[in-house]
């Protein structure tokens, strides 16, 4: 099963027919906001709230460091976006909130992320605290199965949330967009 999922996800970036997604009409409000107040622990062991310490825009994703499906697509994209936005003079903070705190601990999350998504900061916490944060973002997490190695495999939401420096919701990015398009979108919010 994992091979099939990987084969689907690890193909080329989604760019071929992206133009057909575009709808040149004014933006509308989403039915609800995403996000809110939270306190988790980053992979350096520091308390981390919804506000960025440096007031930067934040890219936020829910996943886990041992995920071999959508995380292997979304997290490197966030790493690339951070680099590309910095080149345009826009500093952002990329964050991943774990859906698997049993595996993603303060000690393990940083090194695991560094292997395929350099620059990301992992956030972890108790199951209760993490469930509450998922609720704030309307993100699901479902345990699919435990693989033969004993690793739990989860299905989980896959949008990248773009938050302002205070933790306010700006927009979300489906992971099917190209990195360039995501950079353009985030840049538009940074300018706004």
């Amino acid at each position, binding site marked *: 099963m994992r091979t099939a999922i990987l084969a689907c996800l690890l*193909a080329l970036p989604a760019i071929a*027919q992206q133009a057909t997604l*575009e*709808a040149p009409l004014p933006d509308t409000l989403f039915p609800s906001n995403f996000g809110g107040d939270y306190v988790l622990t980053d992979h350096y062991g520091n308390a981390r709230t919804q506000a960025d310490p440096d007031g930067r825009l934040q890219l936020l994703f829910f996943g886990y460091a041992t995920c071999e499906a959508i995380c292997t697509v979304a997290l490197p994209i966030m790493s690339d976006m951070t680099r590309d936005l910095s080149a345009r003079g826009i500093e952002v903070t990329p964050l991943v909130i774990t859906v698997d705190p049993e595996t993603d601990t303060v000690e393990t999350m940083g090194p695991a992320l560094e292997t395929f998504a350099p620059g990301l900061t992992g956030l972890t916490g108790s199951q209760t605290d993490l469930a509450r944060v998922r609720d704030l973002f*309307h993100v*699901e997490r479902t345990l699919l199965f435990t693989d033969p190695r004993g690793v739990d495999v989860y299905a*989980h939401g896959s949008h990248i949330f773009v938050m302002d420096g205070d933790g306010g919701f700006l927009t979300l990015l489906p992971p099917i967009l190209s990195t360039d398009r995501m950079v353009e979108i985030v840049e538009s919010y940074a300018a706004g």
Partner: protein
Amino acid sequence: MRALIPLLFLAAPVHAADGERVQITGEVIDTWCYFSGVMGGPDAVVGSAHHTCALWCSAGGIPVGLLAPDGTVYMVLKMDGDDTTAGGDTSLHIASHTIEADGMLYRRDGLNYLVVEEITADRDIVNATHEDFGVIPGFAIPNSEAPE
């Protein structure tokens, strides 16, 4: 005119209006394979030919979309009966199905987002693309060997 369109997309976001109620009939698609083109052309990665892969992708967290007959794709933000954003395994039961959806349409960053409040009709899988393409991709159905 073509030069103007990218400028429209790059302009600072304007959040001036609420969503609009819509009724849309379309096929629930795997947006990753449809837009990437890596598994085949758009005619091959929909319908029965792509059903198994669509299940894998949905389980893997890929958001589902609703492909309308005019070619418009609506990214499904929420699905009937689910209070979380669509993706993961919450939409497996309607993967590749043609449905009639009643909901709210929102536009953001040049994308169409649909909150499906009610699936008013589920026509099952009616797009029999396997007749032309077989299974796309073939490896979506792993070789099954009887356990010894």
